[in-house]
């Protein structure tokens, strides 16, 4: 099977790969967003502690 045949997927490439792409974007996006949320939470908490000490 050649690479182009693989992506052509018997003419269903658009449906097949769009499904996979949406799934991948959502799952990877969720993980990245959670990483950002954690960083944000740590930052806010550190600032809160600084403000309380001052």
């Amino acid at each position, binding site marked *: 099977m050649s690479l182009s045949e693989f992506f052509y*997927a018997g*003419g269903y490439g658009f*449906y097949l790969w769009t499904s*996979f792409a949406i*799934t991948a974007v*959502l799952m990877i996006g969720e993980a990245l967003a959670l990483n950002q949320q954690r960083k944000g939470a740590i930052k806010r*908490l*550190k600032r809160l502690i600084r403000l309380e000490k001052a």
Partner: protein
Amino acid sequence: MSINWFKYSAPSTFYPLAGRMIPWFWWSAILCIGFGLYWGFFQTPAILSDQKQYYRIIFPHVGAAWMSMWLYAVLVGWALAGLVFNTRLSFMMAQAVAPTGAIMTFIALVTGAFWGKTSWGTWWDWDPRMTSELILLFLYIGYMALQSAIDDSRRADRASAVLSLVGLVTVPIIFWSVNCPDPNQCTALHQQSGMGRVDTNILIAMLITALGFWLYSFAVIFMRVRTLILERERSTAWVRELPEISR
């Protein structure tokens, strides 16, 4: 030997434990999904004719659809535990499960639409399973909306927990929506589920990919619950002594 199960119900003991487990869940999830998809694409040659290659949409579709129902049951389990034992961590777990459940439901619906367009010639139909899965998405969204609409987090926890319990009724409906006693009475596009009729190689790929989705869910839910713990327990001494905070 007796194990103190309540030890890890304290946020202070669960937080570091979850932190240690997250990388393991990530690696095993990546391994399972990678292996499952490899098997699904390269070890299932010519089972269906070339014309039907879209069937590979089932790998993310089935994994996400199973997780969408399972995670709702997990959410309700934690909500119920929270209502019964009044433990903070249970409610935080329930809250952490909801967005991942909603994402899984959304993936199941969207990949299902792409499947439907190729297989049944329509993006959407009010088939019982699609309709009940859509209601499940609204339940997740409703749960999250209610949780964030109430400022007092203790009240938000209890109110949204009760809402989630009421919504549990949809999970069996989704499950049995394609397995009704007399198929001629049903207008379902989905065929009846039957693991036995699926080719072994496709089944292997599907189950391992679904296992990967399950491990992924653990990873992201633990990540989310850790952030929730930091925010909700921010006034406790142990949070302030964490290396990532005190440094």
